[in-house]
């Protein structure tokens, strides 16, 4: 099926969005995706980990509005982790490209066209959003958060030489086959998962391009970065040093 679509010269983009208690955000994100991707063939795959707040009901209402072929709800019974959420969503993806993004509006769908454009221009296997170049940026971070972020970045750049400026960003576009290949070799969970994905892809020699994105920290709900994340990050860094 993938080959057939590529022969026709027509790309389809499967946007995988993992959710947990994002009933308002998912509706807003879906609206914004449809607003900004007008002439593109795409589907949205919502992987909901059994949110108790009624996220799935809202997604069903969105299916009524936009069509069940455009929005796919592929729930799981409970919280099973981010990495497996992508694997789960990937199983149901019918596009030849896959976009992964967060539901919490820190990733604005208005950047989707620039991801797609960059991929078409360069033929890259992965296009990753970066907050740390001109045109990108972050809003809503205090000094401590910025300091942590810069420190983490300098450490990673010094020790891993990853070839990308933003390792932990998770707004990315992948060729479906590349995502399937890379994700199968990734073992990290949670925060380090995104870093391991891009480092492994880089080591395997995949062509990676970057586009600037802005990152507005969670509008609704609270951010999830604490001391344990820093420890996890350092562990992840050491793990990647010896395994990649």
């Amino acid at each position: 099926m993938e080959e057939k679509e590529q022969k026709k010269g027509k790309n389809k983009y499967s946007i995988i969005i993992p959710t947990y208690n994002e009933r308002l955000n998912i509706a807003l994100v879906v609206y914004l995706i449809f607003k900004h991707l007008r002439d593109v063939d795409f589907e949205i795959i919502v992987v909901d980990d059994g949110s108790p707040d009624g996220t799935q009901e809202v997604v069903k209402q969105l299916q009524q509005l936009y069509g069940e072929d455009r929005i796919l709800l592929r729930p799981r019974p409970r919280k099973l982790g981010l990495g497996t959420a992508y694997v789960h969503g990937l199983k149901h993806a019918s596009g030849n490209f896959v976009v992964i993004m967060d539901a919490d509006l820190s990733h604005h769908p208005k950047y989707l066209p620039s991801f797609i454009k960059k991929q078409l221009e360069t033929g890259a296997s992965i296009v990753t959003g970066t907050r740390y170049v001109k045109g990108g940026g972050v809003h809503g971070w205090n000094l401590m958060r910025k300091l942590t972020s810069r420190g983490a970045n300098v450490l990673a750049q010094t020790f891993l030489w990853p070839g990308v400026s933003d390792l932990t960003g998770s707004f990315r576009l992948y060729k479906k086959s590349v995502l399937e290949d890379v994700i199968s070799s990734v073992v990290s969970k949670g925060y380090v998962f995104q870093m391991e994905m891009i480092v492994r892809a880089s080591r395997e020699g995949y062509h990676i391009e970057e586009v600037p994105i802005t990152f507005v920290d969670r509008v609704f709900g609270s951010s999830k970065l604490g001391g344990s994340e820093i420890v996890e990050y350092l562990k992840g860094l050491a793990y990647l040093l010896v395994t990649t």
Partner: protein
Amino acid sequence: MKHVLKILTILVAISAFWIGLLQASIVPRSHTWLLPIYFIVSLGCYGLLMVGVGLMRFPTCPQEALLLQKDIAEAKVFLKQNGVDVGSD
């Protein structure tokens, strides 16, 4: 090659050079003995400098937060009209 091996190779090359210097005694030995300390200190300085520069030039985007609020308001109006429940969070 695992990445840690690349880094170790570089470290071994640097130490080999240092031992060479010690043996050849081109520069006085007391100076050569201090070189590893200089190396570590300058590495630390480099790290701190990079973090400092990164902090000072940290790209921020306050206007994006305002634009996002507009988008959210627009989305809410549309979704409410079309029967999607966006009432309470």
